[in-house]
């Protein structure tokens, strides 16, 4: 191995090189690489199946590496969704797909796969869901693709990739109270814009993210796509290893960016200045300090999704909602992202807190995030939501509005009936 060349590669390059049997790949070149996991859901899988069948392969490339999660419009929200779920269920049975997760075992895909140890450091993962970039938190190269790409990957185990350049983000300074990964990523998207990392690998590093929990790291990687990113990647450290201890046999390969890796840009971000963030309608890049938005009245709060439906998020919400009531003028919907997260929240008393506060608690589903079900907004309504997108019509009526936040602002706003920070309600 030409070690000089290796020292010049980023994590993204090294993982792609590994998966196409090469020692070095250069930024901008197109490579055909072997994938470790191909993922799809009840919305993207039906088209993927139709396209897969056109290819004419009898079987999927590896029944253990195809993951199917009916989470978007499941539990079935209407007859058409039921048909789609039935279609993918039949495909999963026909092909003896090991990792098909039926309602009851299902969780929101990007919380479920890491929880079950299905994605490991150094993996190359594609998923027919844009938030597949979430697994970058585990040091994997992981990205969203369309249904046709998923179909080809299911048939062949391979897919073409353009090797992305990398933008490095170095976070330093001490986080203020209540600040989580959501605030850092909204702030970052606000800084670089919704296409600020278009086609790029975003590499998150620095002493402040070393301190972040895995849950917060998943949140940050999850929203790389909201800056146009292809990957949103963290280096593996002690916290990653601890997370994986009970979830893997340790049989994975770790890649770090070389000391001479070339970055297209480096952003140094001092976190000690970052306040609780809210992104105002209709772009995730409209990040503002929550404190300046106290006059925004709201009709609904959603805490959940692949972005913020993990234990840390529910813990923060429960701390704020404990012995408080949500405002009479709004609905609060809380959705633990997986059954295990739901159980842990139950054991820790969070669910009881939520119900006593007047929140609705739901079985895992993507539902309201994309205006599917379980919390669709009417004309003129406003929501504060811990989800990932606030585009026009995202959560329902095209004249409704979504303000994106982390769990602390969402829970405080639920009590106040307007956008609020925890200090105002506790």
């Amino acid at each position, binding site marked *: 191995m030409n070690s000089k060349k290796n020292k010049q590669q980023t994590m993204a390059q090294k993982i792609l090189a590994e998966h196409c049997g090469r020692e070095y790949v250069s930024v901008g070149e*197109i490579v055909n690489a072997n994938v470790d996991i191909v993922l799809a859901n009840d*919305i*993207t899988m*039906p*088209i993927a199946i*139709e*396209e897969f069948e*056109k*290819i*004419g*392969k009898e079987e999927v490339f590896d029944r253990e590496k195809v993951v199917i999660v009916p989470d*978007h*419009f499941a539990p079935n*929200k*209407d007859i*058409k*969704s039921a*048909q*789609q779920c039935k279609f993918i269920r039949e495909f999963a049975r026909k092909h003896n797909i090991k990792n098909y997760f039926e309602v009851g075992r299902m969780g929101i895909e990007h919380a479920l796969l890491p929880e079950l140890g299905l994605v490991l450091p150094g993996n190359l993962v594609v*998923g*027919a*869901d*844009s938030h*597949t970039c979430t697994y970058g938190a585990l040091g994997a190269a992981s990205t*969203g*693709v*369309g*249904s*046709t*790409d998923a*179909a*080809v990957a299911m*048939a*062949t185990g391979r897919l*073409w990739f*353009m090797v992305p350049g990398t933008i490095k983000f170095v976070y330093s300074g001490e986080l203020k109270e209540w600040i989580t990964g959501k605030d850092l990523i909204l702030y970052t998207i606000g800084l670089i814009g*919704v*296409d600020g990392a*278009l*086609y790029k690998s975003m590499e998150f590093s620095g002493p402040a993210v070393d301190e972040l929990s895995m849950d917060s790291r998943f949140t940050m990687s999850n929203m790389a*796509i909201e800056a*146009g990113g*292809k990957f949103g990647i963290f280096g593996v450290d002690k916290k990653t290893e601890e997370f994986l201890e009970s979830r893997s046999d340790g049989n994975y390969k770790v890649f770090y960016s070389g000391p001479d890796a070339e970055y297209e840009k480096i952003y140094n971000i001092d976190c000690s200045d970052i306040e609780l963030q809210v992104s105002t309608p209709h*772009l995730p890049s409209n990040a503002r300090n929550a404190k300046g938005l106290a006059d925004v009245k709201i009709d609904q709060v959603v805490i959940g999704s692949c972005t913020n439906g993990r234990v840390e998020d529910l813990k923060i919400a429960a701390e704020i909602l404990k012995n408080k009531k949500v405002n009479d003028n709004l609905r609060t919907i809380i959705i633990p992202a997986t059954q295990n997260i739901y159980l842990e929240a139950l054991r820790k008393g969070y669910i009881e807190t939520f119900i006593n506060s007047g929140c609705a608690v739901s079985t895992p589903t993507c539902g309201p995030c*994309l*205006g*599917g079900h379980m919390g*669709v907004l009417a004309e003129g309504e406003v929501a504060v939501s811990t989800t990932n*997108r606030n*585009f*026009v*019509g*995202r959560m329902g009526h*095209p004249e409704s509005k979504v303000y994106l936040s982390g769990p602390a602002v969402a829970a405080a706003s639920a009590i106040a009936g307007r956008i609020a920070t925890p200090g105002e309600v506790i």
Partner: protein
Amino acid sequence: MIIRESVIKYGDNIDTDVIIPARYLNTTDESELASHCFEDLDKDFKRRVKERKIIVAGSNFGCGSSREHAPLSIKASGVKVVIAASFARIFFRNSINIGLPVIVSEEAGSFIEDEDRLEIDLSSGTISDVTKDRVFEIKPLPDFIQGIIKSGGYINFTRDNIER
């Protein structure tokens, strides 16, 4: 192939939620998807697309979701080509994969206006704005991607390569 059509112009950051709202993702039927294409952004799209079959947009067209329903609904609406200053990467891949022609041109994306009449020659690589008498060069795509386009999409391309 020369495409002679006039333009429907949109701005920056046209996201997949306005191209095809998620509430319609409970079907894969292309004509049904087409009937809701752009309905939250442009109520007149369905009427306008009968006369004008080129979409020109600013930067980051197709940002957001990976839903292939987005380029499928545009293609099934009869749109011949989408030109944008830049595309979100998943939308761009999806369009190539399903055979919806997409052209990246920062200049054309910002210069061309609504209702302009264009002549696009995909083989010579030019966009002519006939209304404003201006010609833009199209930067050729990498050979590999051109191979997918020549096969008529990624499924055909894959089938050809498996059989070989």
